[in-house]
């Protein structure tokens, strides 16, 4: 056994012991429904004390952001160590102490594109769960054409003046800050002239309105900017080069959403769910065949996620192939929920019946193949950039 392998084995034993000693036992193995997620932020209230305790302890060890530098509240782990940490968390059934768009999206962007002051100001508040972020990319009418940014930021000398509207801002009504794409040059070609800006949601002129979805829930908002004054130093990266940051984050988001296809079920496999169904719906050869095919594809996709993770951890990027993960993972998740609804029969069509929240979850999956780049855009990316097929 090499030294490196020995070190990792030691790390695994160490981190498993730490999780075991620090994660409140009531949290272990608890189903990961919506109420179990800790988002943090100024207005956050914990469901119970165990959640608070677990977050505090994780912050103490930097484990809300395992791979971030220690100076920003991370744990400074290597890729290999982070993988082991996540494996042990999953094995022990410990929930993530904190989830946030700050951890997933803004943090990586700041680490790559932010200046020293921005990192020092924002990253620690993310790792400590003090500030909850939301994302302001899409605009009404733009759809898949994300670079069609109309929200304007005018340079007023000592500040930016923002006017416009964003849509699909996740939980903007509960977020403290927003990172957004704004147009800073209206003369430049579409993909130029966009900048990446940070704004406190409490700034005068920012209002939000939740969007009610077909599932009855409102995880997204419309967010309006009416003469909003933003300090000049809130610009991330170069002026008019915000699209570079957006592309970086889009690839990042795709991998996350594609991978989330497994996560959304809280780790339960199709087979486990079927086993829990009432009656023998699997006696229907149509449903049985669909379940078998889904299980085959889901297992193979899970291995593919593992393979791409290994590739990323080996320092080789995933690049445009992330479009495949996003495409395949979200379509698979839609199939999964169609099957679950079909096996649940009439119980599945109740908002609050014996199958609990199945119907809203099913409807929610329909957005999987739209948000973060539609299935159609993913297939375009694979065709054009991976397969290098010609334009007309």
């Amino acid at each position, binding site marked *: 056994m090499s030294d490196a392998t020995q070190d990792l084995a030691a790390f695994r034993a160490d981190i498993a012991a730490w999780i075991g000693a620090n994660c409140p036992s009531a949290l272990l193995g608890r189903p990961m429904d919506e109420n179990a997620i800790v988002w943090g932020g100024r207005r956050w209230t914990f469901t119970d004390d165990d959640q608070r305790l677990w977050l505090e302890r994780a912050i103490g060890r930097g484990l809300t952001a395992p791979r971030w530098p220690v100076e920003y509240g991370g744990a400074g782990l290597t890729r290999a160590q982070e993988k082991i940490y996540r494996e042990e968390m999953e094995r022990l059934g410990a929930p993530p102490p904190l989830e946030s768009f700050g951890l997933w999206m803004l943090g990586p962007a700041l680490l790559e594109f932010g200046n020293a002051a921005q990192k020092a100001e924002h990253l620690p508040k993310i790792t400590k769960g003090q500030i909850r972020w939301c994302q302001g990319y899409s605009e009404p009418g733009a759809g898949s*054409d994300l670079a069609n940014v109309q929200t304007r930021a005018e340079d007023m000398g000592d500040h930016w003046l923002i006017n416009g509207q964003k849509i699909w801002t996740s939980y903007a009504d509960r977020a403290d800050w927003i990172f957004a794409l704004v147009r800073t040059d209206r003369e430049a070609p579409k993909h130029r002239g966009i900048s990446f800006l940070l704004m406190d949601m409490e700034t005068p002129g920012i209002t939000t309105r939740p969007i009610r979805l*077909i599932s009855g829930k409102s995880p997204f908002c419309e967010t309006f900017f009416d003469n909003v004054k933003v300090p000049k130093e809130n610009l991330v990266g170069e002026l008019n080069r915000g699209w570079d940051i957006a592309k970086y984050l889009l690839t990042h988001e795709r991998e996350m959403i594609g991978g989330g296809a497994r996560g959304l079920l809280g780790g339960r496999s199709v087979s486990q769910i079927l086993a829990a169904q*009432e009656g023998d*719906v699997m006696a229907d050869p149509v449903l049985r065949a669909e379940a078998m095919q889904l299980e085959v594809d889901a297992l193979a996709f899970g291995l593919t996620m593992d393979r791409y993770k290994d590739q990323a951890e080996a320092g080789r990027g995933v690049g445009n192939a992330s479009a495949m993960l996003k495409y395949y993972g979200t379509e698979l998740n*839609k199939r999964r929920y169609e099957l679950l609804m079909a096996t649940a*029969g009439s119980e599945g069509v109740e*908002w609050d019946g014996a199958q609990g929240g199945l119907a809203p979850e099913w409807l929610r999956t*329909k957005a999987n193949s739209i948000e973060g780049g*539609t299935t*159609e855009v993913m297939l375009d990316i694979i065709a054009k950039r991976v397969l290098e097929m010609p334009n007309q």
Partner: protein
Amino acid sequence: MTQSLLETEDEVMLRDAARGFLADASPVSALRANRDAGRAHDPALWTEMAQMGWTGVLVPEDAGGADMGHRAAGILAEEMGQVLAASPFLSTAVIAASVLRDAGPRATGALQAIATGQATYALALDEGPKFAPAATALRAERQGNAFRLSGTKAFVADGTTAGRILVLARTSGAPGDPAGLTLFDIDANRAGLDRQALSTIDSRDHARLVFDGVEATGDDIIGDLDNGFATLRPGLQAGQAALAAELTGLAAGAAAITLGYLKDRRQFDRTIGSFQALQHRAAHLWSEIEVTASAIANAGRVLDHTPADAGLAVSLAKARAAQTAKLAVSEAVQMHGGIGMTDAHDIGFFMKRARVGAEWLGDYGHHAAVIAAARGF
């Protein structure tokens, strides 16, 4: 195949009239308004349907009905599906009327009440999450000349609003046995019957019905004792065919809205309907709807002309319709993108009703199995 599947002149006129009426009287916005008002359907719409003769579409003329037949009922159901018009049409004008018209002169009054729009019915059948009439366990215990009904019906369409309930109960045998069942026609307000409204995704009236010693007499029995499955069959088949028609109309409605959107909406400096990948998918969807429409027309024709042999035709219609509606609403929501996910847009209503319609009265697998059995494998 001897009956033409083409629509007759009368049928074309009926479809046009229905489309015109429903566009005014019950656009999708009416469903939204009903939902927001916590109302399963609008009694005024039902009154108008009665005035046009729709509630009597399957009621014999001597009972005051229009007796237009199953193909006509399917055309009405298709048009209702196009705009998601909510009413007790299937439960009452199709299912109950089809059962009662075979029940002899005693049922004339009930049929008259359907034709005039005064009576509404619900069929209390399934006790589990899947369509399985033979699994009926709700017992009708004989007490002298009377029966006491006890048990639970899990998912009853129009169950909270209907004035009368057709309930399939076990009078002998054990659950799983298609024999030993009896069909009762009882007042919905009879003592011991608890009707619990279910909150379903299609915003229509569905209920759990709990029978706790509900009293019934021999006069409440439709058809023969212990032979309720056979008594119910014409109603079930008529309901399955009409529900299939509704789903096909729903698919066509969702496809039409989507096609309009594809022609209007611009992205990347072009109309999204000009993208070939979307064109091919729209063309495929149109083909599926077109093929399903044939199965719908056929089911209506067979029920009208050779009802004794309708099993295959009806199951074919319901299987195809469930599958086609699922494809249509999936494509519709996906092609609308984010806006299709919002409650403010109508397209989500189509997806939710399609799911309920796919389950009610037998899912795809149930009907495909009927077809396979009929075809000898």
